[in-house]
């Protein structure tokens, strides 16, 4: 099975410093700041694969490097080292990092969608809900107004955005509704890979639950490969089958989601699960 997304040896160091500064950081040293240079080793040696129809969770506390990994994959940040491959790009034969920034950005149109925690990052709040979807469609070359309207309506319906709000500016929407529009936009061109970064964090509990339901349904139906980044076991448990645990920029454990929850191996995972499960 060709993975839809494959990440190998991804690393990201902020600030001064080189790969030499990786020594002395990580879970074993309980720090991400290099003692020699002060560089921040936000992520190191991160590898995983996600297949079509599969959802991989990335769990960890804030500062564990999980969001850094996501931003490196989608191109919001440039990793220090490692490779990222998509089955939809050259059959996985090309490291995305070797692509030009322009081609890299173009992948976001229909190959690699991102749903951010903050809808303002993924949406233009000044535009209508339909307009946000239209941006993706026009970027993919759609030039027929009627069909763009139709497709946007379908997506609104699919993401439970009332059709009579489709032409209202997203700025006037509640947080949960914005998140639904962000999902509609992300899915506009049927991307084979979707990254979700804390997609329900910050929403009221009941709203978060319904958005979570929606995401679960969409992932099940669309057969996309998903990476779900979250600090919340409830989210990870509901959406993913496999999970990696990040701590101080490293993956400390990888396994099946139910296995991590019931039989965590690494001391840090046990602590994390223990804390979450009370």
């Amino acid at each position: 099975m060709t993975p839809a997304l494959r990440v190998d040896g991804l690393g990201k160091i902020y600030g001064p410093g080189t790969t030499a500064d990786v020594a002395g950081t990580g879970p074993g040293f309980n720090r991400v700041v290099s003692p020699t240079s002060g560089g921040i080793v936000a992520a190191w040696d991160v590898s995983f694969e996600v297949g079509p129809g599969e959802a991989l969770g990335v769990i960890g506390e804030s500062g564990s490097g999980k969001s850094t990994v996501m931003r490196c994959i989608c191109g919001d940040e440039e990793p220090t080292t490692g490779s990222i491959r998509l089955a939809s790009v050259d059959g996985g034969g090309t490291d995305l990092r070797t692509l030009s920034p322009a081609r890299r950005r173009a992948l976001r149109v229909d190959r690699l969608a991102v749903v951010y925690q903050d809808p303002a990052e993924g949406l233009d709040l000044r535009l209508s809900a339909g307009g946000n979807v239209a941006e993706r469609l026009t970027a993919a070359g759609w030039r027929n107004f009627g069909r763009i309207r139709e497709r946007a309506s379908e997506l609104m319906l699919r993401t439970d955005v009332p059709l009579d709000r489709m032409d209202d500016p997203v700025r006037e929407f509640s947080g949960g509704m914005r998140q639904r529009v962000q999902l509609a936009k992300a899915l506009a061109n049927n991307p084979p890979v979707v990254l979700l970064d804390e997609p329900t964090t910050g929403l009221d509990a009941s709203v978060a639950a319904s958005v979570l339901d929606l995401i679960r349904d969409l992932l099940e139906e669309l057969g996309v490969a998903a990476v779900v980044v979250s600090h919340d076991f409830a989210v990870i448990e509901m959406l993913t089958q496999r999970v990696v645990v990040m701590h101080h920029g490293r993956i400390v454990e990888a396994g099946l989601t139910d296995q991590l929850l019931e039989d965590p191996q690494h001391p840090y995972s046990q602590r994390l699960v223990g804390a979450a499960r009370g």
Partner: protein
Amino acid sequence: MGYVAARGGTEAIAAAEELVRRSRLNADASWLELDQLTERLRYLNDRVMGEGGLWAPQLAARAIRQAEGDVIEAAHLLRAHRSTLPRLCELIPADADELRPLRRIVPAFREVPGPQLLGRTLDYTGRLLDLGDEDQARAAAAAATAAAARHPEDDPAENAGATEPPFPERLLDVLRRTDLAVDRRRDDDPEPTDISQVAVRPGIGRSAVLSVMARAETGALVNLWYRNILGPDNHLHEVTLGEVRHGELPIRVRHPRTGNPVLLGHLRATEVEAIEDLDGADEDRTRFDVGYGLVAGHNERKAIAMANLDIALHRDHSDSGLEQSVLMTTDGLDASGFLEHLKLPHYVTFRSMIERKQAMRTDRARNERKGRRHHPAPVVTPAAEQAAVPAGEVTP
């Protein structure tokens, strides 16, 4: 006869031009001599040279007189005049350490290396409108001028800048020696950008940004500075001036045959070094940031704004669009020209605007008859819903 005589416009502008010329000559006053401007309206003349980007006191005075005192107009005349001149050579970058101070203050310290030289400044003159008798003033001026001619060594204006080399060390040198200053010197921009030769845009480099500020409209720069202190930009926090100097700067070119530097002359310039107490989360709080301002003529207001904005520019990390604001919106000629172009005829564009308003109304009326919004969301049936998501169309 056509509906509009093809010569109508020409005649009108010729008449307006003649009216301006005659009114200028016929004013009920004596002819304004150039030295009146260069000697008695020093700040005005300096400002026009600074914003006009040309050091030529006599030409600036002509421009001010021709523009009837409109600073922007006068700066425009200077710049347009310069456009007609071929570029013969380029100056060797001036060394600000060679500036012979006529005035020098260091607010940051009580005792500094070298003098605190107050010099010719309005700072501490009482802001009381002089309502003295005109005839007495005229007589006093004539007497002072005659006395100065007899005894030049007593002239306070001449003696104000009695400093001779070696010139006082800068405060910044002291800060650098004690490792208290962030080092902003850089080597990726060795040859200063000549902004009259390139179209500047964000990312162009510090020398170009500094040049733009040096030529900017004084009020625009002061306003941008104030926005950063009180307004939304907020990149300035606690600025102290390290050095304010006004003095004479030698200007040199390389001799075309020998290659040796040759002194062309001097221009007066105002130089400011500003010090910022860094307080950002990602900044080195153990050091000061420094900013630099240098403008032609005596214009401390502008030089201070420039030095402060230089700091603000490295503090905003190109995030806030401040660089674009400095580069694109502070030029007096650009802003005023565009503003004033609104006085030109715009009836073609206005007609097009009215036509669209009517089109919108027609569309609205049509939809109201049908009782719907402009483009109602298409009805999607449940069957279509099922097929909708997987069956997206992608056109190349």
